[in-house]
Every structure is written in C-alpha cells, then in structure tokens.
C-alpha cells in the first residue's frame, strides 16, 4: 500500500470515528490546519458523488483563496463572481474527472472567465476594496475572535499590497501563491510563457518583500 493510500484510509477511518458524524459541516470558522491534498482528493471524490461533507471541505478550503484572487482580479464584484463560479462548479461537478490539482485549476479558470464576463477586468489601483463590513459575531466555539481579526487584517493588507502591483503581475502572483496553481497552468490561464510567469512572480515577491508594510506583516501573522 502506498503512503498516500495509507493516508487516505487513515483519513477515512478518522471520519467514521467522528462522534457526531458531520464534522465536515461544522460552522465555517478560521482554522490554522489546512487539509492535505489527500484529504482534498477524498473530499473531491465524495463531492462528485453528491456527498455534502466532501463539498463542504472543498468549499472551506478553496473559497477564501478564490475571494482573495477575485479581490485583485475583479474587485468590484468579487462576491458575485465567486457565487457564479461555485454555481457552475456545483452544476458541472458530476462530470468533472480530474484530480484535486486539476480541480483547483478548473475552479480558478471558471472564476477568471466569469470575472472577464463581468466586464470589470480592470483592477482598481487607488482603492482596493476590502471585505464588506462584517456581520461576524464572535462565536465562543471558534478560535479567538482577536486572532481572527488579526489574521483578517494581515491577509487583507497582504492582498492590498499585491493589488498595488501591475494588474497582470498581481494576477499571476495570486494564481501562483494563493491559488497554488502550477506555473504551466498559470501561464496557460493568463496567456504568457511559463518563464515569463516565473520571473514575474519572483520579481513581484522580491519587490513586495522590500516594502516595509510587507515586513510589518511578519509581526502579526
């Protein structure tokens, strides 16, 4: 049995042993432990067969990076575009046959196309919108509300810094760093050569690393 298969089986066992049986449907809350690719693959397989737990895990894992990407790509309508993206994913998921990496690429491809459809392809530079005023009410069961606020502000600041880059470069950074897409996938998505994407992302990260605001993020992250 391969390592991944063992991990897969372990994950399945842990799922069966959950006392309430619906841990995947727990209320959305910040969590520091990101699921592994094996867990995501399992979630994808289950979601394809209509399993709500699987879809919930996929959504909780990929919706935040999707929103962050759209903050740069389609700042005026990121919620709209994200909603349309997930509606299409939900509709076409049964016919999707790829692995979780391909799913990630598929998701962000849909999002990019929907953003283009939305007719708001240009990113605003002077005022990068942040999330709407939050209705969030601190839940005693979640992680510290203070931690959540700190994480939220640092993430928003980071996204804001990326959005200060030229549009194409900012998009490549978000697709590579936040969405986690491979260079080849990003290159195909944005219509550039792989080398161009690699160089652009590295230059952007170096440039941003020199920004005192980026260095300040290290104090709160």
């Amino acid at each position, binding site marked *: 049995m391969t390592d991944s298969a063992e991990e897969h089986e372990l994950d399945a066992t842990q799922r069966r042993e959950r006392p309430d049986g619906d841990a995947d449907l727990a209320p959305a809350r910040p969590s520091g432990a990101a699921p592994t690719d094996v867990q995501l693959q399992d979630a994808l397989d289950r979601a394809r067969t209509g399993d709500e737990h699987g879809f919930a895990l996929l959504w909780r894992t990929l919706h935040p990076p999707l929103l962050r990407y759209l903050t740069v790509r389609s700042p005026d309508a990121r919620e709209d575009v994200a909603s349309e993206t997930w509606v299409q994913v939900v509709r076409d998921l049964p016919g999707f046959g790829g692995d979780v990496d391909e799913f990630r690429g598929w998701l962000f491809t849909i999002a990019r196309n929907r953003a283009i459809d939305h007719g708001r392809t240009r990113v605003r530079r002077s005022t990068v919108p942040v999330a709407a005023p939050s209705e969030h009410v601190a839940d005693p069961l979640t992680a510290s509300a203070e931690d959540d606020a700190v994480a939220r502000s640092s993430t928003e600041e980071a996204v804001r810094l990326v959005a200060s880059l030229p549009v194409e470069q900012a998009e490549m950074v978000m697709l590579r760093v936040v969405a986690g897409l*491979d260079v080849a996938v990003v290159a195909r998505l944005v219509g550039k050569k792989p080398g161009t994407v690699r160089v652009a992302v*590295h230059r952007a990260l170096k440039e941003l690393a020199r920004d005192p605001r980026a260095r300040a993020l290290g104090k709160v992250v």
Partner: protein
Amino acid sequence: MPGHDDDLSPWNDDPLVRALRGPGTSDELAGQDEFLAAFRAAQPTAPTPISAGRLRRAGRRLGGGGSAVVVVLALGAGAAAAAYTQSLPDPVQRAVHGVLGPVGVPAPEPTREEASRERGATPSATSGPGAPSTDSSPGLPVESPSDSPSSMPTRAPSETPSATPTETPTDSPTPTPTEAPAPVPSAVSLAGSSHRAGPDDQVPMVGNVSASDTSPVPGQEVALQQRVAGAWTSVASATSDEAGSVSVAAPTLARTSSFRLTVGDLTSTPWRVVLVPTLDVVSRPDSGSTAIAVSARGGRQGDRVELLRRRPGDDVLVARARLAADLTTTFRVASPNRRVAYVARLPRTRAHARARDAVVLRPLTPVAVSAAVPDSILGPQESVTVSGTVTADGGIVLPDRKVWLLLREAGGDWRRVGSATSDASGSVAIAVGPIERNVAVRLRVGRVRSTPVPLRLQPEWTTSVATSDASAVVSGTALGGNAGDIVLLRQVVGGRLVTVRQATLTAAGTVRFEVPVPEGRRDRYRVVLERTPQHLRTIAPVVVRPVG
C-alpha cells in the same frame, strides 16, 4: 494549501506569502450554508436549483437591496437552507416562499385540513407531510446542514405542527374538483436575475402569483411596471402558468429603475435594477499631445467624467469634464515620453452606477524618416541641403527628435557628418558638401534610417587653345578630376564624333593635346573626361581656328 511549487518554496516563510495563504477568515467563510444549499439543490433528488443571484445576495450579506435578501438574512443562513427543505415553521416557510418562490423555495406543505380541502380526499394517518426528510438528499443526516446555533432548526421534520394532525375531520367530504372554488390571488412576488444591467441588457424576471393558502394561481394577467419619474408605468404583461409563475423581461434601461408586478390591486415588492454604464476610452495621439476620447453608453448628458493618471498605489486626478449630448467627452494630455496609464471614471449618480475604463499611452516612436535633396548632381564647389521629416505610426510628425546625417563614400562605411533637431513640424534640414567624389547620404533618428540619397560629382573643365603656324595646342584643367583619369579628344567629322587623341590627367588635373592647324576652316573638338567611380563624365567643346 498550495505549495507544490518548487520554485516558491524559498518564499514559504515570507510574511507576505504567509499572510496571503492564511486560513480563511470568518468573513470569507460566512456564506457556507448558502453554498451547501446550492450543492444540495443541484443533486438529482433536490428541489429547484438555487440561482447564482440568490447566492450572490447571500454572499454580499449587506446591502443586497432585495427583499429576498432581507428575508434570508432575517431568518439566518441555516434557516434559508431549511426553507429549501421545507423544514421551517409554516408561517415563515410561507413568507420565504412568497419572496423566494421564483428562485426555488417551495411553499409549506398544506395542513391536513388544507390538503383535504384542496384534494378532496380523506386524510389518513400516514399522509402527513414528512416532506423534509424525503426532499433531502439521500444519505445526508437528518440534522440541519449546519450546527450553528442560530441556523439550526430545532425540530425534527416529523415534529412539525402540520405533520401531526390534532383532529379528525368530522365529516367526510368528497368534493369533486369542479366544486373547488377558484383560487383568488392574495400575493404576488417578483425577482430578477440580477440587480445590475448594462445599457443593452434586458433583465429576465420571474414572478409568482399565489393564493392565501400559498397555492399557485394560474391564468392571472399580471403587469410588469417600471417606476418612471415617480410614477409606475406598465411595460410588459404576462399570464401566470399552472405553477402560478410568470416570466417577463424588463426593457433595456435608460436609467436605474425599480420594477414590480401587479395583479389587480396586488403589487409585489419592487425589484431594483441598477444601470451599469459601459465606458470606452481610446487615445488618439497627435504630434504634441494626445486626445483621450471617452464614450459612456448608459451615461447621461452633463454627467461628470474624471480622468486620472495611474501611478503605483495612487491615482492622480488630472482633469474633469462633462458628457456631451452624444455621451462622449475628450481630454487632451501631453504626449508622454514613457508609458503612462490613464483611467477615466464616471461617478455613480441616481441614474446609473459608476463605471471606469483605462487606456495606456505609449510614447510615440519614430517609424520613418524621409530624406531628399533639391539636386543630386553637384559641382566641385557646391553644397546641398538634405531635408527630411520624422514620423510615427499614422503619419504623425515628431518634433524635438535628434536626427543624424550619415554619409558614405564608395566602398566605405556610413559615418556621421552632421545633426539637427526636428522642428515643430517634424522637419529637419542639414547641409552637406562640397564633395570631392560621389557619395550617398541618409538621415537617421534612433534606429530608423531613411533611404540613401546619392550625390554625384560633376567635374568642371577649363580649356584653352594656343595656335601657331605649325600646330595648335588644346589645354584643359578638370576641377574635380583625379590624376590618371582618362581624357579623350574627339573631333566632329561629318557630323560624327571621332576620337583622335587620348591622354590622362596629371596630378594637377591638367591635360594637353597637340592638333593640326586647320586651313580655311575651323575644327571642332570635344574634350571628354570619362566617367569614373569618383565622378560623372564631363565634356568641354573646343574650336581650333586657322591662323590669321
């Protein structure tokens, strides 16, 4: 989270990258229930799929503007999901259905009595609703899709009031369907596919006509009304189908508008559609400036338009203007020396949403330079002026460009012999000469070169004849000739030229021929300096007269 990337691994501990990859915040994850409901609705056994519009509204959380949003938010996200599975208390379910019926929220199950009245059948103990569990996706737990305290239905589906008959009908009515009273509309709802529309878009809208018991009312003539200048005006009509639904398309918008459906005296909650103008910005460079033309479809005459110069992290307002009657306006800016981006912005008004578009101005680069001379044949002492014009794409002349004059001699390389700066009309003039041999000249600006222009040297003869009794001597000096150049002496004989002597130029450029002295007549000669790579052919006529 992401991280297969090899070449990004050095950045894994970078504060910015860590922040970008940070876990989802509560705000970002706030809409989970709605998306799960959409997923559930998409399964084969689920009720009508949920539209993107509903998710969009749920995703926004605030400021949705539609009554559907208000209801959804008021109920809580989990309750919205519960509404789709009919697990809300009847009054609430009915209210949600009244608003969200068009987007898939079913009406509550009728009570035993209602069902009895409608179907004319005797209810049985096993005919209770139980709908929630049967409508849910198979395999899902019976619990609410969320365990959030605020969103969890507190009753199991089998405990819904309507599912527990408390009394047995005392009579056993067996009314036939023809005896059922015609349903009377008591509510009408309206929902559009979007709250935003472009200048050419027609927003599809669906409505629902229902009776007091939430049953659909078919065959009702409904009118779609648009609020214009404070008054409601009918713009479309339709008839409700068997499900009580109507589908109409709102007309294209001239401004942000509200729509509603009416049935008799009943009106639906208005559905507001915001007009989103389409901004189109193009640049038309000229020699010294660039016109930035903005057209705003969906804008209105007199609307303010702002032009901003884009800079990293900060856009600078450059100019303001008003839309003309043709919904266009033009800004004029200096043609840039480097790439500059401008953003045109149409602020939001009561008539439309805001819109923006960007255009990038690139410095004009020369694509051509011409070169011409008034005369390409020069004498030994003559100069000439080479003139030309520097142009960019589209024939736009470029002033203030440094232009070099290049010169090449036969077998040599191009070398710079002068320069000048193009004037306001893009023109330049540079003098060259005198030349000592044939050359070619061209103009160059940057990497753009003109076509070479040849300049030919035409030598000049100075001749004389000295006659004595015995002989005559024809002498000549060729200015511009070179030592060794061949010189022919040709005599006109019978109207034809016959070469009678040949010599070469001396280092001083002179030549000397001795000819017979004619008797009683004049001999006519031509002194011919033959063409060489250094100069053209030059001929001088000479006449030798008899002595005396």
